């Protein structure tokens, strides 16, 4: 009987070892590519815009652990702004200075430690909400407009996450000194990515690729 118990014990242990592992995918497999989510106001005629403004080599930073840390400069900011400029130029938009009455403002910033992605449902993987009415968190006042339309995201804290947020803001059709964000894109996660720079560049291009309505 003692032998049977020992055999049984080892059988259980062996089976646990064989079957108990791997109840979730490896993180390296999960973060191989970034998620790219885009939203737009579907009544927008993107062909009606001709020019855009975007500061080069600097992007915004929304970081709940250090609210004063509002800018990112350096190689990552250069990569993001250069990729955006190249993509916008290819589409046919012309970059101008912010004082030259641009039709669009192109914002780019990194949101850290907040959850920005929507929950996804299996049957309709992309849930979506009606366009991006995100307020101008990106160094407020840069374009001289406020415009707080509500907070469709930043619903919850999500520690150790970072998301690149892109926005196209309609400066051409402002009303009551308020502006409308007609398109936005989220790409992440930046912190766990196996190749943050390369995958960011891919994600920016993917954001525009899956937004074929942005055209001249």
């Amino acid at each position, binding site marked *: 009987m003692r032998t049977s118990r020992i055999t049984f014990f080892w059988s259980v242990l062996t089976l646990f070892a064989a079957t108990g592992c791997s109840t979730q995918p490896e993180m390296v497999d999960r973060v191989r590519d970034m998620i*790219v989510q885009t939203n737009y106001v579907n009544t927008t005629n993107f062909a009606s815009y001709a020019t855009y403004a975007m500061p080069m080599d600097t992007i915004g930073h929304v970081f709940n652990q250090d609210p004063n840390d509002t800018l990112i400069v350096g190689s990552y900011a250069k990569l993001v702004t250069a990729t955006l400029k190249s993509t916008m130029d290819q589409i046919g938009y012309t970059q101008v200075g912010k004082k030259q009455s641009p039709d669009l403002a192109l914002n780019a910033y990194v949101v850290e430690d907040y959850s920005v992605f929507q929950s996804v449902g299996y049957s309709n993987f*992309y849930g979506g909400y009606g366009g991006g009415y995100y307020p101008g968190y990106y160094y407020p006042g840069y374009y001289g407009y406020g415009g707080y339309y509500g907070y469709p995201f930043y619903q919850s804290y999500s520690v150790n996450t970072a998301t690149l947020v892109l926005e196209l803001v309609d400066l051409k059709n402002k009303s009551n000194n308020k502006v409308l964000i007609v398109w936005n894109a989220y790409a992440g996660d930046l912190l766990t990515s196996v190749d943050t720079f390369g995958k960011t560049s891919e994600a920016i291009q993917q954001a525009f690729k899956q937004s074929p309505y942005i055209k001249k």
Partner: protein
Amino acid sequence: MKMKQLLLLTLFLPVAWCHAQSDSPLGRYIGVSWNMNKPLSNGAFVSDFSTQGLQFIYRQGINEQFSIGGDLNYAVYKGYTPRKTYYGDSGALTTDYFNYVQSFGLTLTGDYLFSSDKKLIPFAGLGIGAAFADFKTYYNIYSKTDGSWGLLIRPQAGVMYRFGRSNNWGISVAAYFDYTTIKSSDFDFANFNSAGIRLAILFLNVE
């Protein structure tokens, strides 16, 4: 019958049977098995053949033909959807994602033994009990989860092999079908059914 009552019945009925007198050659026996499963429904969520299954078997022989007891089983099912763009009315989402289901089952099970006095013992049985499944979708660092209880019905058939009359252990191979009423509206998931094969080691005439 409510799920909790079913669960309690599943737990305690076999225990009550432990004290029953038996003239079964197998007596009371326990076992542990490696289960391999294939999901038969909701294939869009998880479809991969799973080798991550485990089961504990408990039976009390009532007579030469019948034994009754319980099964406790666990399985992990997986599915992977490659990177793709999903379009909606106001935007799009590009990602790949991994679906996982961890399922647990507890059944009150009765087996009919076709020839319990021989080395090779074919059997057929039916288990009824409760099942719980934990559904999870992983996309990048994010995940979405849901859990659900349901009724579990498990018909099964197989064969036991006893290593001689003096040996109190044997092996068993069985095929089974799991029908459950497990649902998840979050994942558009209904009646998670699967079929499987189990390879078990059995310890017979346990005191």
